[in-house]
């Protein structure tokens, strides 16, 4: 864990109730599947948000966001007063951020044909994971699940990484109609997922336990001190914020 100051470089809506924020600051040590915990003025507890991407400094004026310091990208959904306040923060705001939190995904387990399944705001952590797996030369298949067309984001961004992308919407307004499980082909070497609990349960039922799941729970501190987010597993109690948020599917008791 590190406590650092980041500066907001962009903060914009990218889908219904979903915002992307890019922050400049020290991103050293962050791996895919980890999260940051952000102090929001007026709220007692911090807001834990998964890391969508980290980028090294660019000095290329053809890039839309020319930055001399590393950039941290987070994507968050407005679900309450805290995230609503975040969505109104102007560019230039300095944020108190706890970073390098949680364990992250184990990329060494991916095999040659990893499958990444993201549902809703479970999609963002899949992006940095997909990017690094592509850099390792893996054939990455991505399934992104949303309720409806207005909520879809990052479809093209994943394609730009060279991933085989399938988008599902529950109402069929975009991509394949149905749930992420409707798009499974059973050919993956391993899977990585993050999303709502019903999706995770359905995925494990359909695809087995040869994969890793990022769990979400209400947190107090986000760094292992308060025991507020502990889940029961076949290997005993585990703190989602510390031993997790990523767990092997086979130890979960959902």
């Amino acid at each position, binding site marked *: *864990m*590190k*406590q650092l100051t980041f500066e907001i470089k962009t903060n914009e809506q990218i889908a219904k109730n979903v915002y992307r924020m890019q922050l400049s600051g020290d991103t050293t040590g962050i791996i895919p599947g980890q999260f940051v915990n952000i*102090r929001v003025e*007026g*709220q*007692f*507890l*911090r807001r834990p948000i998964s890391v969508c991407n980290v980028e090294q400094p660019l000095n290329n004026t053809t890039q839309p966001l020319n930055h001399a310091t590393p950039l941290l990208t987070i994507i968050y959904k407005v679900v309450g007063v*805290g995230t609503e306040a975040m969505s109104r923060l102007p560019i230039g705001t300095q944020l*108190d951020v*706890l970073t390098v939190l949680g364990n992250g995904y184990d990329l060494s387990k991916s095999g040659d044909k990893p499958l990444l399944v993201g549902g809703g705001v479970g999609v963002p952590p899949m992006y940095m994971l997909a990017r690094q797996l592509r850099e390792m030369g893996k054939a990455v298949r991505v399934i992104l699940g949303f309720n409806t067309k207005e909520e879809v984001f990052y479809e093209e961004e994943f394609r730009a990484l060279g991933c085989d992308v399938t988008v599902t919407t529950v109402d069929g307004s975009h991509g394949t109609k149905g749930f992420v499980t409707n798009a499974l082909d059973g050919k993956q070497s391993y899977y990585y997922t993050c999303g709502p609990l019903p999706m995770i349960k359905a995925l494990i039922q359909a695809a087995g336990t040869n994969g890793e799941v990022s769990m979400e*729970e*209400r*947190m*107090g*501190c986000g*760094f*292992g*001190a*308060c*025991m*507020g*987010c*502990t*889940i*029961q597993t076949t290997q005993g*109690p585990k703190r989602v914020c*510390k031993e997790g948020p990523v767990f092997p599917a086979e130890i979960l008791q959902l």
Partner: protein
Amino acid sequence: MNDKLQISLSGITLANPIIPASGTYGFGDEFAELYDINCLGGISFKGTTREARYGNPLPRIAECGNYGMINAVGLQNPGVEHVIAHELPRLKSHYNGCIVANVSGFSVQDYVETCALLDKEPIDILEVNISCPNVHNGGMAFGTSPEAAAEVTAAVKAVTTKPVYMKLSPNVTDIVAIAKACEAAGADGLCLINTVLGMRIDIRRRRPVIANRYGGYSGAGIFPLALRMVNQVARATSLPIIGCGGVSNAEDVIEMMMAGATAVEIGAANLTNPMVAKEIIDRLPTLMDELKIEKLTDIIGIVNHE
């Protein structure tokens, strides 16, 4: 070390009065990633019970605006034997200050057995929690009647040579009566207050936020209540008091000590700003200069000296 900050609890010298409160600091491991925890006067480690406990179902946490939070963790811990075998030696290996062992139970026998086991260990103070609001048939049940509080106090005193500090609940009609009962039963000191029983409702889902329905409210919002109770107890007993409840900054520490506390625990604030305990310790000397306080021991209970 700054001698101006030194205080003493039952003959044990603490470099300063700042002690992270049990349940907000684990065994210090997470905070040691950010700063040298040897700056702390003491550490009250995670509440320990005779047997391992998973605790309450999730969600266990609810926010209360800018003023605090509710928790219903329910004493998740690996059990006293595991703590003695693993967590305590680890803490001892990188921390030299005062170790406060926080203990909870579901029967008098539980408290007795846990304290007897810890009596042989390198801990400095036993903090006996008779005030956990998040467990049934135990915890707070012992802290809500003077008779039960006295029974636990006497039973624990009989099996240990360590100083015994009883941690009191604010969820009572008369905290002074309970404090006096602990004093009469032989307590060496008191720690107050534990969290205040509270509730939040998710108005969209029309159900309590906390799975256990109620939980313990802590954070800046309870500071005035904690301060009042520390002051009432300080005026009614002669025991040293560890003041606790909503302390968020160095000013709060001074206020708590002026009310009658000898040492001060920092609770929920650790969870929102993991650096807060160190920041308070660093700030105290400057604040003392501003307030013309020569040494902290001079101000303990100063508002009671009329």
